[in-house]
């Protein structure tokens, strides 16, 4: 008992890292000692380790949420630890699991969903966790496209949505005006984007019309979803490990063809594979007038675009392929509970997840970070707070992700080893840009190589 309480006292003071004064430390210690001396037995807080990949200001906000939960009750203590980038965090969790040192909660990016879902022995599905611990759980309260991505075939939600995003289009209003276009009218269709880009370049307003991060996620996966085109068999992989890629369809080929044409004409500039590290500077330097990236980058885009006004718009679509575009699909990450901890810990995790779902907490996180509000209640709260009216463009993402009725093609993608498959897609895109393949050949090759990756995953997880 003595050691537990003393530990409680000193632990508290050590984790208070914003320059705790001497007196506060003493206070903590004396509180601990008092608790020990009191007749009632003092119990140690159950600690819940939460590994995440949120850094800088996002990490600070996350810490605030954890602290808020810790202060709202005394039984549990959530301890967030930054473990690096998304891949580093996942690898750390896996290494820890193999050594029986795993955290209770880990934040895994959407690309790792396939891996996590296949690891049935490692994962404690959220819907089960909540039910087992008697916490309220209403799947319908969540934004449908978000939960759809993380549900199994029976519609049970396996991981806790936390920070989800979707790609949108940012554009430079000043450059639009300079080129003679209406600054309040961004292109709605790809045809319009082509014409507008041409006008921008030919008028001399800027040397380039469009650049984009995430060729894979935005220009292939989301393209397919928005146009109700399949990305893979078996409901884009939701139906099982035997899925195969099918993204070399006519719409995708047409789009890649266009990107190549535009690149040759100078209307489109490629910004690199994966997250496209080179494309953002093109937008901030006013070299390219239009930029496509995750909605979560909104704060950063505004901060870096000090010299011009940024506009926000949904992604364009091909109006000759679809008249009512479907919803876009999500990126970002969710929180997964890992097996192997004491039941006491999971009680706390369940309570924490309930806390996370509260509208105020959700709305606060979403408004600060630019990630989507996960619950309908949080969205409504923001509306009632007039947040969206005061921050134009902040609801573009939500509206885009909730438009229309989702189909099997727009619920998202579920593929194992998706990181590797995306690398293949990036490589084929680059080969196409270099002129060594046509769009059809590049996509065909990507599908073929990608399918091999899928078969590997299937074999390893059968």
């Amino acid at each position, binding site marked *: 008992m003595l050691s537990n309480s003393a530990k409680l006292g000193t632990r508290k003071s050590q984790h208070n890292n914003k320059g705790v004064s001497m007196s506060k430390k003493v206070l903590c210690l004396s509180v601990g000692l008092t608790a020990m001396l009191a007749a009632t037995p003092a119990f140690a807080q159950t600690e819940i380790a939460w590994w995440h990949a*949120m850094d800088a200001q996002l990490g600070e906000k996350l810490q605030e949420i954890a602290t808020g939960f810790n202060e709202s009750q005394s039984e549990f203590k959530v301890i967030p630890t930054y473990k690096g980038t998304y891949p580093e965090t996942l690898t750390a969790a896996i290494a820890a699991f193999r*050594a029986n040192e795993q955290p209770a909660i880990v934040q895994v990016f959407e690309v790792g969903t396939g891996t996590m879902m296949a690891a049935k022995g490692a994962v404690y599905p959220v819907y089960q966790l909540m039910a087992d611990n008697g916490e309220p759980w209403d799947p319908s309260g969540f934004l449908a496209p978000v939960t759809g991505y993380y549900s199994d075939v029976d519609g049970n939600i396996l991981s806790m949505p936390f920070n989800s995003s979707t790609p949108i289009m940012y554009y430079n209003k000043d450059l639009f005006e300079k080129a003679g276009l209406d600054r309040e009218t961004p292109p709605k269709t790809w045809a319009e984007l082509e014409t507008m880009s041409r006008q921008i370049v030919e008028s001399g307003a800027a040397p380039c019309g469009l650049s984009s991060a995430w060729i894979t996620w935005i220009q292939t996966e989301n393209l397919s979803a928005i146009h109700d085109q399949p990305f893979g068999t078996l409901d884009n992989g939701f139906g099982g490990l035997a899925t195969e890629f099918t993204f070399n369809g006519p719409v995708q080929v047409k789009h890649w063809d266009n990107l190549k044409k535009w690149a040759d004409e100078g209307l489109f500039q490629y910004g690199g594979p994966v997250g496209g590290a080179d494309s953002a500077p093109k937008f901030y330097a006013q070299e390219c007038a239009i930029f496509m990236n*995750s909605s979560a980058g909104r704060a950063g885009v505004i901060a870096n675009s000090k010299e011009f006004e940024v506009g926000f718009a949904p992604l364009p679509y091909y109006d000759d392929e679809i008249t009512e575009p479907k919803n876009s699909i999500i990126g970002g990450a969710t929180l997964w509970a890992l097996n192997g901890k004491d039941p006491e810990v999971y009680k706390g995790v369940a309570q924490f997840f309930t806390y996370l779902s509260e509208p105020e907490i959700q709305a606060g996180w979403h408004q600060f970070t630019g990630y989507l509000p996960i619950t309908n209640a949080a969205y409504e709260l923001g509306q009632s707070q007039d947040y969206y009216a005061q921050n134009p463009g902040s609801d573009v993402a939500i509206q885009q992700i909730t438009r229309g009725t989702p189909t099997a093609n727009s619920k998202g993608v579920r593929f194992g080893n998706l990181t590797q498959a995306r690398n293949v897609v990036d490589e084929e895109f680059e080969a196409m840009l270099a002129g060594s393949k046509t769009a059809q050949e590049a996509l065909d090759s990507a599908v073929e190589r990608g399918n091999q990756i899928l078969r590997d995953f299937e074999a390893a997880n059968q």
Partner: protein
Amino acid sequence: MIENRPVLAFLTHLVLIVGVVIVVFPVYLAFVASTHGSGDFMRGLVPLLPGPHLIENYSFMLNEGISSAGAPPLWIMLLNSLVMAISIAVGKIIISILSAYAIVFFRFPFRMVAFWIIFITLMLPVEVRIIPTFKVVADLGMLNSYPGLIIPLIASATATFLFRQFFLTVPDELMEAARVDGAGAMKFFRDILLPLSRTNIAALFVILFIYGWVQYLWPLLVTTDSRYYTIVMGIKRLAATADSEPQWNFVMAAVMLAMLPPVLVVIFMQRLFVKGLVETEK
């Protein structure tokens, strides 16, 4: 310099100046970045001259900057890096010099086997063995501890190899003279070999200190307790934002701050291996 050849002297300085420019330019760039406002670096041609925000950025980093978002205060991270760097440098030097001595100055069965076992440690990429190494460390209960941070990194073939190279150049006459004098193996080691090795030890110390100082992946994996965070973990955290642009001016300020202790080590150690103060005669 033996003759006085002004052309050659001028050429030498020219070569050195060009060399310094090439080698230092990226670091200069980091410095320039740390003196501008956030976002200045992404908006147009990267500025080549320092900006006006030097005091502002650096005081922010020292007071709050790195220690935001759950990381411990700056001085704790610097301390951890210092402990790691010194322990790793000293540890590696000690065990490597002993091993090299054994391999070069003695004949015994399995001598070459031992050398190659040690030497092979250079040749397997760390990412592949990192998960099994983590398991070993966890099984030994060494997570979240200084030994866990330090000991797995201490087996270095580089230092052993360097000492081996150097020891092979030590003239046999020295050894024989020592034996004639009745000195045993360890006495020879202490009194004759070590002083001779001073230059190499100094050079190695600089390199190994920096190696320990910049460790990132291993501390990240092996610690969950933020009390053990190193300074480079703090920097990487600022530089690797998940969905938005990092604030480069703060990242670079942290980078510059992190480079200060190694610079001190370089300056201090130089005395031991730069010409002018060291006897070049053996």
